[in-house]
């Protein structure tokens, strides 16, 4: 049986019901998604590795379990993909870098292992900016990902492949990593939900690090229920990740919400469609009894700069291990060990990665450390304190995910321009709090627009509660890409 294309855009929860009702099997669903990848991914570029054989084998096992009434979880038999910085046993993990082009991990990341344990069907590995450094997935050393809504636009980044895949029916959900907005920004550009949970809520064991103090595992989905279901499977303490925390309840007793709106989006900062979406979201939440106040965010310019300094410093340290001897593909130099290191790293890393490593080393130098690195840590403490205050008075912060909708491929010229686009997302990472990007309509060009909700520590249940109110006002059909118009 061949499934119709519109079935591919169902949510994971809808698929689960269909599987329970024997409308189709997990194998039929998986084969249909693989066909979708075959038919559309050449133009979107979401996947770096597709494991069709492994996916079909997992789907068959799931069907056997369902037949015998031994379903493992609500995700049993549901196909999904992961960003290519999650280690997957016996399946290539490249971080979209020449450095790891042939790396096959001998173990699974905890998040992947939990999904295997839940019976979910892994389709393959998704494209990203190299080592998760970038905001467009143009900085992948292996291929570029295009926005499924319009191929002239970027999919966002760094988890652009995962967002594009979920938006175009190439998997029901996906995992990404979010260090400064790398899940929420591509989710916003591609019109899907993107959750960055509280720092430590999901184990990062087996996720190749970018900036250890900021990295979080994130979730892409086509509905809030799906996002909650996946989060419920993944959250919890892991003895292999010392920063992970015990799972809290997702039950939330409804009450009127107190919501803060940042004051830093003056005239011209936001694209008109984004400003309009923000107003509409405010109206919808107000109809449910929410009250709003405008607040000042802690030092926006310094927060962005602090993020850039901290990320670079941690990248320089984390990526020191890729020298072609301990880790990574090796390249011969002039015969000396130093030359081998230098040539390996010069060839193996792309421009953006090199830039961040070098800048990281610069801000950590003894004569610059106080002015840059130590000061950035001070700003981060200031942001964290500010957010603690904020969430002692308000339940949520409502703002855009990005000031603009997806930009055209090749249009961002300097690294600073790229960093400035992270204005709305870096706060959640600096403070360690959860945030979600909620698709909320399209602009006149048909590109998705979204809003972002941020909550206090372990406030995921509040995020889901409020996001569901917005979801009811923005039907999924509105957010679907027009896949038949591949090149407009």
């Amino acid at each position, binding site marked *: 049986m061949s499934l119709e294309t519109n079935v591919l855009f169902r949510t994971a929860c809808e698929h689960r019901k269909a599987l329970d009702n024997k409308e189709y099997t997990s194998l039929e669903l998986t084969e249909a998604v693989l066909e979708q990848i075959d038919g559309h991914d050449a133009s979107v570029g979401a996947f770096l590795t597709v494991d069709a054989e492994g996916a079909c084998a997992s789907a068959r096992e799931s069907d056997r379990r369902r037949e015998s009434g031994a379903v493992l979880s609500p995700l049993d038999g549901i196909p999904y993909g992961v960003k290519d910085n999650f280690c997957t046993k016996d399946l290539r993990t490249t971080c979209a870098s020449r450095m790891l082009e042939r790396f096959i991990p001998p173990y699974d990341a905890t998040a992947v292992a939990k999904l295997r344990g839940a019976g979910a069907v892994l389709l393959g590995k998704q494209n990203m900016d190299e080592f998760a450094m970038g905001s467009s997935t143009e900085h992948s050393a292996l291929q570029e990902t295009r926005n499924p809504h319009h191929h002239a636009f970027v999919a966002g980044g760094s988890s652009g492949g995962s967002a594009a895949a979920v938006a175009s029916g190439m998997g029901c959900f996906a995992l990404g990593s979010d260090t400064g907005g790398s899940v929420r920004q591509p989710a916003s550009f591609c019109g899907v939900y993107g959750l960055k949970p509280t720092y430590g809520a999901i184990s990062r064991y087996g996720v190749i690090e970018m900036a250890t103090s900021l990295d979080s595992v994130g979730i892409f989905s086509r509905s809030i229920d799906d996002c909650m279901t996946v989060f419920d499977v993944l959250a919890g303490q892991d003895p292999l990740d010392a920063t992970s925390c015990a799972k809290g309840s997702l039950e939330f007793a409804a009450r009127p919400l107190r919501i*803060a709106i940042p004051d830093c989006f003056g005239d011209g900062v936001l694209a008109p469609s984004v400003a309009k979406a923000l107003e509409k979201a405010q109206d919808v939440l107000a109809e449910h009894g929410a009250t709003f*106040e*405008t*607040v*000042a*965010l*802690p*030092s*926006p*310019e*310094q927060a962005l*700069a*602090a993020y*850039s*300094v901290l990320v*670079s410093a941690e990248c*320089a340290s984390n990526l*020191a291990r890729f*020298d072609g001897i301990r880790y990574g593909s090796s390249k011969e*130099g002039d015969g000396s060990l*130093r*030359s081998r*290191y*230098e*040539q390996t*790293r*010069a060839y193996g*890393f792309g421009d953006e990665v*090199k*830039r961040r*490593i*070098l*800048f990281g*080393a*610069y*801000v950590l130098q003894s004569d610059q450390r106080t*002015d*840059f690195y130590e*000061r*950035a840590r001070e*700003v981060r403490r*200031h942001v964290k*304190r*500010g957010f603690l*205050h*904020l969430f002692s*008075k*308000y339940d949520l912060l409502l703002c855009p995910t990005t000031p603009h909708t997806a930009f055209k491929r090749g249009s961002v010229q*300097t*690294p*600073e321009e790229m*960093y400035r686009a992270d204005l709305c997302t870096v706060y959640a990472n600096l403070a360690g709090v959860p945030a979600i990007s909620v698709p909320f309509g399209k602009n006149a060009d048909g590109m998705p627009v979204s809003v972002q909700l941020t909550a206090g520590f372990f406030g995921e249940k509040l995020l889901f509660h409020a996001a569901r109110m917005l979801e009811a006002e923005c039907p999924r059909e509105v957010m679907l890409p027009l896949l038949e118009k591949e090149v407009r």
Partner: protein
Amino acid sequence: MELSLKEIETLGRVCAIAFQNEEETEKIRRELEGMRRYALVLREPLREFDPFEQDGEEETVWREDQAQEGLAREVLLANAPVTEGDYIVVSRTVEA
């Protein structure tokens, strides 16, 4: 002071990244200089942040002072573990 080519070469050695030629070194110097300038904003004073400051329309609500009867001496003494006459005995914490 702007980053020099010599500093970039030193950083390249520290990070074990070879530059292919002078053109590449100069390109990286320009980009890192842009990032350095961008990060100079860190030197500026931080914006004070206190969401409570913005509650212009809210006022603290006070109640009128009211004189109330205190507890009787006997009730208080009855709750003390050890007493001596009208006093509560506590452990000595400072040696004389």
